[in-house]
Each structure stands twice: as C-alpha cells, then as structure tokens.
C-alpha cells in the first residue's frame, strides 16, 4: 500500500485531537527524535498530543486504516531508546493526559492517566494528608511519567523491599493496536486467568497504548532511618549486602557506590569521603518504630563484621537527604566530566556483585573506557556508567562494544540484560543472549497475538531479524549509530 500523503494524515490527526495538538513542523518533529538514551531516532510524520482515551483510540484506528505505525511516548526519559521513532510513524505523546482521576486510600489505590509525572503523583498524595504514597521511584521521577514507568517497568531505589513498577500496577486501560479499548486487571487479588496487566507492564508500547492506570498506594512507614556505611573495599561492601539479606533483614533500600563513583560525587558535592574508603553503602530501613533500634544494631554489627570504616546515621529528614545526596548526585557528577554518559543497566545474582563490577571495570579498561559503577545492591542491579565522546566514532564503537560484553558477562553469571530500564532498541540483539530461538519465538507470539500488523512501536524489544522487513524501521543499531 502506498503511504498516504503526509498533509492528509496531518489533517485527519487534527480532526481527531484538534489542530493545536498536532506537531508537524520540522523543528517540532526534530526533538521527538531524541530521548534520554544515547541513541537517536528518525524523523516522524507528525506528533499527536491526545487528551482522552477516545482520541488515542481514534488515532490508533486511523493509523491502522492507513498502516502507519504509532510510537507512544511519555516524558522521553527512557534509557533504552524505546520511545525513539525508527521510521515514518506517528508519535503519540501522552503528556496532556495528566490527570489524577481518583484516590481511594480505603482501597489503597489510585487511578491516573499515563502523563502524570511520578513525583507530581507523590506530592499530590502527600498534599492530601492521608499518609499514603506511591512507592516506585526511578531516578528520573521528577520528570518521568507514570505511563512511561509502566511502559518500561521502571525500578528505583526502593525496589528491594517494595518491588518494581509491575508490583504496584493493579489494572490498566489499554488501546489495542486494532483500536479496541480494553480494561485488564482490577483492584482485587486472585483474578482468574493470566496477569494481563503484568504482561503489558514493560511491553514498551509494543502491545498497545496504556491510557489509564490503577496503581497501588501504600501507607507511609511509621519510621524511616537512613545510614551511610563506608568500607575499605568493594568486596567488603558486597559481603555486607549478602550478610544483611542472609540475616533476614529487608532494608527499604540498599545502594552501593564504587570507589570511582565516590570520587566523582566528592568532586561534585564535596562530601569529604576518607581516602581509604573503597566503596559505600546507603542503607535505608523502614517500618514500625518499635524494634527498629534492634534492627539497626544488627545492621551495624554486620557492617562492622565486614570491616566498615564508618557508619553515619541520619537523625532528621534533612540529614537523611544529605546522605541520599551521595547517591542522587551520581549521574550529575558524571555529566560534569563528559558530554555523554552511557548509563548501562544489568543484573547479577547478589552474591556475585563484587566479581561482576570488577570484571566490568576490566572490560572498560581493555576498551579504553573508564567505567564507574553505582548499584541497587540489594537487587544485584548494576548501573555501570561509561563516559564517552559521541563525536568520536571510535569512542562510540567502544561504548557499544563494552555494553555488549557487559551483557554477555551478566548472562553468563546467571543474571539479566536489564534490571529496570527495559530493552527498547538498545538491547534487542542482546535479548538473544538470554533466550534461545524457541523462547524468542514464544515471546514473539505475544506480539503476533496483539499486533500482527506491527503498528505499535514496531521493531523494538525482540531481535530485529524476527520482524518482517517493513517493520524494521531504520535498521540495526550498528548501522544507525548512536
């Protein structure tokens, strides 16, 4: 089928969402070829900014009738390139669907539109004074949308105790690729049949567009205590993580910075880490006030048994924020030294974390790259950070090669190619490191079942070779470059 004239498509989109909600001039389109990843997308036909589910459904039906793919987009903070257009398509940007529709503390749930910013939802909940919050807290929470978090099954600092986004999503309203609007999941547990909402979370807009989200809210813990512990070596810090978990203690957060990361952070915000510190852990405990002192003593004993140099405990929320700043300043500290930082996401079994980080540093050294690591240590979820210069083609190639080798390493250690950032275009070939042909084929059956025509975010997640040529968009990543 010959593609429709661009002008006709823009006009039809304008009829659906209103002319003010269609961006089609070159400069407007251009910015949608970017997101927070190190990758780049292509030009698009137009960007539609719908305000209602009905508008999304009508855009989808238009796309289906004219066989033009649709790419859903939240705030564009994803790191896997999943929201990047990879060929002639319509971008459906959900930023204007940003209403909090219902809060029901008595049912521990809230219903929101996908364009609600994660942090805005938390502040909205705090403002109501019910004592409830929405837990998932990806690093991008001040800008990333709940819809984007759902699309990528985003994680955060508090996954260890509370789980990733999927664990907090109760139900979804989804516009399927055929334009049907369906509700899946619900407020209660024990729903018969598969966990459809769970399957759609993390599917990166490849199975439909999520237009409404019912999520779990939880009572705020009675007490939160934040600590920072310094260790002479990475291995000591990693042993402490295993020791805490083995003792049956479940912290709310357990974050690790390696020596290089601490140096970067120190140069940025002047923490004043002692020179002998080779790694640090940020440990956050929450729960009932009663018995918390006992738990903190046990944590301190485990830290000391693993040669902790120092344990700082925050006594006020302000002090806690200061301790957290070491972690939260990590990406910012890297941005000061390099125009581009490749944030890598992978996970390994918790007890192999130190070994993995050392091997990752070695991979970087071999390729002439200086790798710095920060980790959600309790989950074994590592974020190696690779500064590079995107203007230097050799540097770009080295960064991509390092990424691939790190993925191989993690899979060989029994880990995963992604902990919380998703697959997108970044890891679609690496997915084959984890799954064989039969497994990928069964996964592809999910895509075929719901989007046989490849209209929703085509050519993403699964290896490109599995898609029909027309759905491969701009081609393989190594051809497109970064």
């Amino acid at each position, binding site marked *: 089928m010959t593609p429709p004239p661009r002008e006709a498509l823009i006009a039809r989109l304008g009829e659906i969402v209103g002319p003010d909600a269609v961006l089609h001039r070159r400069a407007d389109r251009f910015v949608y070829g970017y997101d927070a990843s190190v990758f780049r997308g292509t030009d698009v036909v137009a960007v539609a900014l719908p305000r209602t589910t009905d508008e999304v459904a009508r855009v989808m039906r238009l796309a289906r009738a004219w066989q033009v793919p649709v790419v859903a987009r939240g705030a564009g903070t994803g790191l896997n390139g999943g929201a990047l257009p990879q060929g002639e398509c319509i971008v459906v940007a959900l930023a204007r669907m940003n209403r909090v529709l219902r809060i*029901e*503390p*008595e*049912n*521990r*749930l809230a219903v929101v539109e996908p364009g609600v910013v994660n942090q805005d939802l938390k502040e909205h909940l705090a403002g109501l004074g019910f*004592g409830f919050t929405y837990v998932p807290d990806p690093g991008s929470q001040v800008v990333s949308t709940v819809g984007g978090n759902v699309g990528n*099954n985003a994680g955060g600092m508090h*996954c260890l105790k509370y789980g990733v986004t999927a*664990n907090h999503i109760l139900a979804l309203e989804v516009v399927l690729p055929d334009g*049907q609007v*369906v509700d899946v*999941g619900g*407020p*209660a*547990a*024990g*729903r*018969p*049949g*598969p*966990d*459809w909402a*769970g*399957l759609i979370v*993390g599917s990166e807009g490849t199975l439909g567009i999520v237009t409404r989200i019912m999520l779990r809210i939880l*009572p705020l813990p009675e007490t939160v205590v934040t600590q920072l512990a310094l260790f002479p070596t990475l291995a000591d810090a990693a042993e402490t993580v295993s020791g805490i978990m*083995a003792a*049956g203690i*479940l912290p709310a957060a357990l974050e690790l910075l390696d020596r290089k990361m601490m140096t970067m952070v120190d140069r940025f915000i002047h923490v004043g880490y002692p020179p002998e510190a080779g790694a640090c852990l940020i440990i956050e405990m929450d*729960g*009932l006030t*009663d*018995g918390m002192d006992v738990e903190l003593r046990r944590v301190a004993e485990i830290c000391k048994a693993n040669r902790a140099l120092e344990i700082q405990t925050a006594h006020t929320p302000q002090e806690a924020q200061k301790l957290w700043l070491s972690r939260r300043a990590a990406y910012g500290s890297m941005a000061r030294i390099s125009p581009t930082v490749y944030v890598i996401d992978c*996970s390994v*079994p*918790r*007890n192999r974390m130190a070994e993995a980080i050392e091997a990752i540093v070695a991979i970087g050294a071999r390729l002439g790259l200086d790798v710095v690591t920060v980790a*959600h240590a309790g*989950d*074994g*979820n590592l974020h190696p950070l690779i500064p590079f210069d995107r203007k230097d083609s050799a540097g770009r190639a080295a960064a991509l090669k390092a990424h691939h080798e790190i993925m191989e390493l993690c899979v060989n250690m*029994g*880990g*995963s*190619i*992604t902990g919380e950032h998703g*697959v997108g275009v970044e890891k679609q070939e690496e997915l084959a490191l*984890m*799954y*064989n042909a*039969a*497994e990928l084929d*069964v*996964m592809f*059956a*999910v895509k*075929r*079942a*719901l989007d046989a025509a490849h209209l929703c975010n085509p050519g993403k997640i699964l290896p490109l070779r599995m898609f029909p040529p027309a759905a491969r968009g701009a081609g393989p990543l190594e051809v497109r470059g970064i």
Partner: protein
Amino acid sequence: MSADASAAGQINAALGANVASGAPEVLARHGLGGKLPAAAAFPETPEQAAAVLALADRLGWGVVPWGGGAGRAAGRVPARYDLALGTGRLNRLLDLDAENLTLTAEAGMTLAEANRLALPHRQCLPLGFGREARSLGGLVAANHTPPRRLLHGDLRDQLLGLRVATADGRLVRFGRKVIKNVAGYDMNKLYLGSAGMFGLIVELTFKLASQPDEEGALLGEFPDAAGALAAAAALYASALLPSFLFVLDVDAGAGLRAALGLPVRPAGWQLLAGFEGRGQALRRQLADTRALMARHGARQVETLGPLPEAAGQCLEQPAPGGAPAALRLRLGMAAADLAPELERLPRDAATLGVAAACVADYGSGRLLAGLSDPAPGRVADVAHFISAWRARVTARQGYLAVQAAPDDLRARVHPWGDAGGDFILLCALKAQLDPRGTLSPGRFL
C-alpha cells in the same frame, strides 16, 4: 482424532519409557465431571513431558495438565479429554541458593516439601500457612492467592522464572533467579494463572523469604458484621503491618473456631489478623490490634500462634452449616466494597433456598463464598444469580470466579466470565500459543 485404549501404549512406545497408564483405577482418579481420559501420563523429566505433548499435539488429542488435582473442580468439563498429563513425578529440587534466597524446583514438588527444604536455612516460601500438599506448578497455574500476601506479596511477586513445555512440545525457559529478571515480555505473568492453557509448567524459580522469628494472630469475635468490618478497615488503614486480615461471617467463623479447637459459642462475626516479626515489634502490633478490636466492639479476642493448615482450609473454602460447599465462588472487588457484599450475598442466596458461608480476605479484596447444593429445580435460578453477581462486580472492575460447582451448574455458567478485556486477550493468546487447541480444550475457553 481422539485417543483410544492404546493411547498409553502409544506414548510409552514413542518415548521408550513407561510413563503412561491406561489402568482403570488410574484413569478413575483423573475424571473431570464424569469424563475419563484414555490415558494418564506421568513424565519423569521435562524432556519427557515435552515429548508427550508433542505427540498429543500431533495426534490432535485433548490434554489436561494435572498437578495435585486441587483444581479439578474448576473449569468446565473438557470438550476433548484424551490424556491427563500429571507432574507428580516431576518433583526434584534443582537449586536452593540460600545466599540469594531463591529456590528452583520441578513443578510437581509440593509447597510443604519446598518449605521443608528451605527451613534449615531459616527461609520459607510464604505461599500458605505451612505445609500444604498442593504442587508448586498447580499453585502457579491457578494463580493461588497466598493468605499472607499483605506482608509477602502475591505469587506474581514471588515467581522469578519458569520453564514450560509448550503445546507443541518445545521446552522454553523465562525469567532468571535474579530478583530483577525481566527482559523482553514478562512471560511469567502470562503463564501465571493460565490454568495450563498455554503450556505445562515443568520448573519454577521462586524468591524465598526469611522464616519469621515469631508469628502471632488475634481472633476477635464481634456481635455484628459492622463492627468486624470497621475494625478490619481501620487496621488496613493503619501503619500496622498485618500479614493477613480475614473477616468471617457467623457460619464460616464457627468452622474456623472449631478447627482451632475454640468454643464455637457465642456465634458472632470473626476478625482474624495475623502478624510476623520479632520481639518488641510483634508485641506492639498484637497489643495495638487487640485494642483496636475492642474499640470496635469485639466481645472477646483470642491470641493464637501460627495457624494450622486446617485453618487455611476454613478460610479458603467456607462450609455452609459445617458441610463442604457444593458451589464455591470467589469474588474480587475493592476492599471497601466487601462490607456491603459480604452481608448481601448470603441474603440473595437464601432467596433461592441456598445456604452460604462467607469469608472476606480483606487485604486482597476477595470474597470467598461456600454455597450449599441447589435443589434440582433451582439450578437455572442459581445460574442467573451467579451471572447477576458477576455483572455487579465486573461493573467495578471486580471478578467472579466459579471455583467448584455441581456438573449441571458448571455447564450453564462460564467459570471466569467470557466478556471484557481479560477474555479478549485470553482468546488472542490462546490462538497463538495453542493453535490446535490441545491443552484443556473447552475448560475455560
């Protein structure tokens, strides 16, 4: 083509192993609604399970996966039932990684066995009250709701990975034993609760929890529903961290009290709240909850230790008038909707001459109802009653699942409901993952 008496022989010959039987007493144990399979197979390895499925798929047989048999009352009588494919011999431990708190086992292992193996490491798989005989594969295929989910989460939160024999006999593995294991589509979520419609689960990996140092529970007895439900709502809204929270009506409550060896009188509504932890924190939760119950009018509050398995049975399968229920319904709704519905359902059932005992799993939004066998002349009315209740709860994104029903009723009502988004996706995926309709044909689709 349906299988005949030689089916077991065909399987054994194809596999070169004695895994299938056509013995009448074996087949009798695998009947579904009066229908018997032509053979029952009990593979000893995942590869054998896959080979049996490949053969059945090629020959056009209808296959019903079979764990411990707990789900036999769910679903309709299969349209084709040639083979029962049991996981009873797939019961090996594959990996217990105490340092990473994970367990990988074959699907036929019982929950009791998994917990027996984890206990020396002071860990547990918190899917029940203790030593349940249900198979791990069966629990996952049924998306069993763990009673202690308020503290430990749902099965979706515990399940890290699985290995499945597909309808056409391929072995595939999804997920990993790391906590954040999802790459690509989260296939665990697809097989969870799929009742064996997309494949036979042969291995599973779970996250383990630490064995609680201490457990305690309180059973408050209230003169009316309002007090018990208001206390449950207050506890649910508080900063306290119960592991379970059940409200039982008079009939269900009497069953639980009897199972716990407590005097059945006075006959009131019961609120059961459980806690785990250590020392000071546990004592404070019990004290605060006791006071909260008293404030809401509890006439007496009993302190209990860890609950016996029999208590779990009373909570999941309330027995009207003390007799096992012929009809068991599970309804899901927002927690606050449970209060009115818990009183209304038995009232509605009574107009049909059917007795009902009900339990509200408050923290899960589940209403579990056990109903007596309807009189033969009332079956159509009861079917209408179920449909009307399903419409009521699905209008608010809830659900109604028929967990067990007499055969004449089973034929009249869909076990899960055949409208809405869940059903649309179920049909779409079934067409892709089991195009020949080999697995459990007609039971749920």
